[in-house]
Every structure is written in C-alpha cells, then in structure tokens.
C-alpha cells in the first residue's frame, strides 16, 4: 500500500511497524499457540488435573505412554496440569493488569489534568505508597487470611498501578498543554468530554505498552506467591506452584521442574518481547 495514495492512520502505521519486527511476530505466534493449547488440551485430554492415579507415579515423559510430559508424584498427568497452570497464570496476569490500568489511568489523568493542589495531594499519596514494602505485606496478608484468590488480585492490582499513574500523569500534563485541548475547550466541550475524547485516546498507546509489560510482572508475582505456597489452592496448580513442586523433586525427576519452568519463562519472555515491540511500534518518534 502506498502511503501517498491512501492516507495511513496512526494505528495502521503502528500495526505496520509492529508487524515489521520479527521478534514481535514470533512472540505473538508463540503466545497464541500457548493460549490455544491451554484452552484445548484440558478439554480434549482424558486426564484431569486433580485425580490421583497410584499406578502411574513418576512416569517419565514419553510419546508411547500417552503421558507426553510424564506424571507427577500423585500420578497426575503433567501436561494437563501445566496447561491448567498456564490458564491460571494468564488469567491472573490479565485480570490484575486491567485493575491496575483502570486505577492508574484514572488517578494519573485526574492528577495531570486538574493539576494544582489536587495533583500535589494525589501524587504525594503515590510517593508515600511507593515506600510501602507491598510485596512483603501481601505475603503476610496471604499467610494471615489463608490463601484467598481474590486477595491476590486486589493486592497485585494495588501494587502495580503506581507506575502507570506516574507515567499517565506526566503524559496528561504534556497533552493538556497542546492547542487542540484549548480549541476543544473553546468550542464549549465539557471537561469530562475533553478527557474522554481527547486525552484518553492520546494516552492509549502508552497505556497499552505499560499494560503489556504489567502482565508478565503480575504473572511473576503470582508465581512467587504460589512458590511460597500462598497462591492457588491445591489440587489446582499455577505455573509457580508447579515449579515449587518440581524444585522439591529436581534431583530424581528434573522434568517436573524443567517443563513448567520452561512454560513460565516462555510466556514471560513472549510478553516482554511483545511489550518492547509495542513500545517501538507506538512511539511516534520512530520511523
């Protein structure tokens, strides 16, 4: 398509630049494959993640047995358990990132757009919260309240919105000073409409990038909690709890550690590459 004959919108341009990156295509493809697998495999497999089978303990991965990833110490099929782990990890990652993006964008736009004393108050709060050692606190709360899945969401969302709020505030202040905002106000548009129609769309690229980079950090945090035994309830598994179980067996049955660790690392790796590629694609300074 020749950009001279047909105009190219900013989103089209970003998409073209995104596709031009080989690492981005690979990351997107691999991630899509994992999502498809973790949706399909548990539905199609004759095994489930919970039922122990005492005759199939510690089967090594093999094509002939039907247990492609082997079985764990309770004879449960590792393939199904890893796929369930991917489901949980991705779900937690996406849901908690959405929470943090919503809070962060609302907080940041309010501070950046209103400015003045409101800005000072809102950003002082963020500064104070930055110094609170949240992750240790969340660990304590998980221990005290018993493993509460909802708490994991809330806690992770509460920790990770601070960065987004700071970045969004800075960007909003920059956007605010542009003349098209002045023009919109002069035309009689009310403040909420200005924010919704002119500020938020211009923030979107930035927010997408940071949301993409928040997902892997949330997944890692959930995995950390599960590793410490504070995440999902057994018999359900997340990738973190599978790694923790595998670490206990690593001398005799290293595949129990290596397979879930490889899936965890691949997902995080793909998301990080994706975030980097999006940043390059959405940054208008490039090209």
């Amino acid at each position: 398509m020749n950009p001279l004959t047909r105009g190219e919108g900013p989103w089209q341009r970003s998409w073209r630049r995104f596709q031009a990156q080989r690492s981005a295509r690979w990351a997107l493809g691999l991630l899509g494959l994992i999502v498809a697998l973790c949706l399909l495999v548990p539905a199609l497999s004759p095994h489930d993640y919970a039922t122990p089978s005492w005759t199939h303990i510690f089967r090594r991965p093999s094509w002939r047995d039907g247990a492609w990833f082997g079985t764990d110490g309770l004879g449960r099929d590792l393939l199904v358990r890893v796929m369930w782990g991917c489901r949980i990890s991705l779900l937690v990652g996406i849901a908690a990132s959405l929470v943090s993006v919503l809070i962060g964008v609302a907080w940041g736009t309010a501070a950046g757009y209103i400015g003045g004393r409101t800005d000072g108050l809102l950003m002082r709060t963020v500064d104070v919260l930055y110094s609170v050692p949240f992750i240790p606190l969340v660990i304590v709360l998980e221990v005290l309240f018993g493993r509460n899945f909802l708490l994991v969401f809330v806690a992770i969302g509460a920790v990770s919105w601070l960065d987004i709020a700071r970045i969004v505030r800075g960007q909003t202040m920059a956007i605010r000073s542009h003349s098209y905002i002045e023009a919109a106000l002069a035309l009689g548009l009310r403040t909420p409409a200005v924010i919704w129609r002119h500020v938020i769309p211009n923030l979107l690229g930035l927010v997408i990038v940071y949301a993409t980079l928040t997902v892997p950090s949330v997944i890692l945090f959930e995995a950390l909690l599960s590793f410490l035994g504070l995440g999902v309830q057994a018999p359900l598994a997340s990738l973190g709890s599978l790694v923790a179980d595998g670490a206990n067996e690593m001398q005799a049955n290293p595949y129990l550690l290596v397979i879930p660790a490889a899936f965890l690392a691949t997902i995080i790796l793909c998301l990080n590459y994706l975030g980097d590629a999006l940043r390059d694609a959405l940054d208008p300074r490039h090209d």
Partner: protein
Amino acid sequence: MLRFVLRRLLSALPTLLVIATLAFVLLHLTPGGPFDSDRVLVPQIQHSIEARFHLDEPLWRQYLRYLGDLAHGDLGPSFQYRNTSVNELIAQGMPVDLAIGGTAMLLALLLGGSIGLLAATRAGSWRDRLPMSLAMLGISVPLFVTAPLLILVFAIQLQWLPAGDWVSGSWRHLLLPSVALALPFTAYIARIVRSAAIEALASPFIRAARAKGLPARSIVLRHALKPTLMPLVSFLGPALAGVLTGSIVIEQVFGLPGIGRYFVTGALNRDYTLVTGITVLYGALIIAMNLLVDLCYGWLDPRVRARQ
C-alpha cells in the same frame, strides 16, 4: 543541599507513620492471635501473658504504645521468640542479608553496567543482540527457578560450592546465593544502560567530542557515562525493593538465617511486633534509598542540583 536532605528526612516521618499504621492495623484485623493454640491455657496464665504484652488493652492504647516505642527506636518484644526483642532478631539476621544483598547489587551493577555499555557501542551487531537476548531471558526467568537450578548444577552435580547453610565470612557460602539474586538485576541493568547509552551516544555533545577527534574509549567513559547513569539511578529504588523480596526467596531456597525467614515464620505465628518491625525496617530502607537516588540526580545533573 543540607536543607534539602533535612526536608526530605522530615517528610519521611509521615511516610514511616503510614507504613507502621498500615502494618499494625492489617495485622490486628486478621483472625487469630499470637497465643492461640490447641491447648487451652489456664485463664490466669492466659491473662498474665496478655497483660505482659499489653494485649488486654484496647487497640488504640496498644497502637499509641507501639508508636511511642517506635519513636525511641524500640520495635518491641517478639511474641514468638520469648525474651528476645525484635531489635535483637533484626540485628542477628541483618548481616546475612547485607552480605548477600550488597554483593548481589555490586555484581549486578558492575556486570550489567559493562554489558550494557559494550552492547551500546556495538548496537545492531551480534555482540549487541546476543547479550541482549540473554538479558531478556534473564528478566524472564524468575529467581525461584534459577536458584534451584544453580544448586542443581554447581552444588549437586559439580560439587564446587556448598548448597546452602551459612558460615559467616566464608565467600564460598556467599557466592551461590548472591549470584542467584544478582542475575535478574544484572539483566535489567544491562538493558537500561544499553538504551540510555545509545541515546546519550546519539546526542550532539558526543558528536562534538567525536569531531574533536577524542578516542572512543574516553568518549564513552568520560562523556557518555554520566547521562547514561541517570536512568540507572532511578532503577535503584525498585531494585532495592526487589532485592528485599528476592532475599526472602533466596533465604527459603538456600536455608539462610536472614530477616526474610523471621518475616515468614513471624507471619505464620501471628508475631505482630516482629512482622510490623520488619515491615517498618523495609520501608525505612526504601525511603533511604529514594533519598540517595535524589542526591545522585543532583550529582549527575547540575540542573537538578540548582532546583534542590
């Protein structure tokens, strides 16, 4: 300068107050108490234990008492370790964490910094792409995966280093946990330094230095290094928080007698004072690091110094 430091220290007090209050309230809100057990105690004993730790007072009295002690630097007695104060427990565990965390930070800064600089000067070539792919892998593999793998390879298979335990002053016991803790931060720092150095090397004053015919080494080390350090310095705050969290995992995996272990067992046993004390300590460390970061900004960038 001095006024800036004083003002910042003064504004740290309300932050610490918020942290202490948050930890105190959250802990006291949770079900279960520190002296709940399956055995039913004789009421008199129960009562005297509660009286000794002031648990029979209303919550607001306990809170004010805690704040008063905190103002004197006294974190109170531990509930779980009888006849031991939280200060003593922290003093016992702190050297271990300082040794491992300090070594890890130093390793990460030196190694990550030099990898990032080298990659930036060769941007686009395989000597840039290979270390950067490794760095991407480094930030994607969590600590609790690398630590057991390092033990598996270096302690169990090769038997070069001990697989845990702690002998104070022994570098052999220090090496494996510090390297495991340093790996993700090395990767982060390499990425940050690389992108900052590429930006700095593209700026006009570097072109001027090149035009003067200065050798490449002195351009990078004497001119491009300082602006490169700016984003690295802002990473130090989050890095410290990461090291604190990471040390909890590392202590668990390697079985080390640091603060993180007290933290988890303290939470399990409803040891209010121990957990609140360590939380406040972590908060104070992060605040101190943020102040250090701001002072470094002033040192690196004269424009910031003028504003301070």
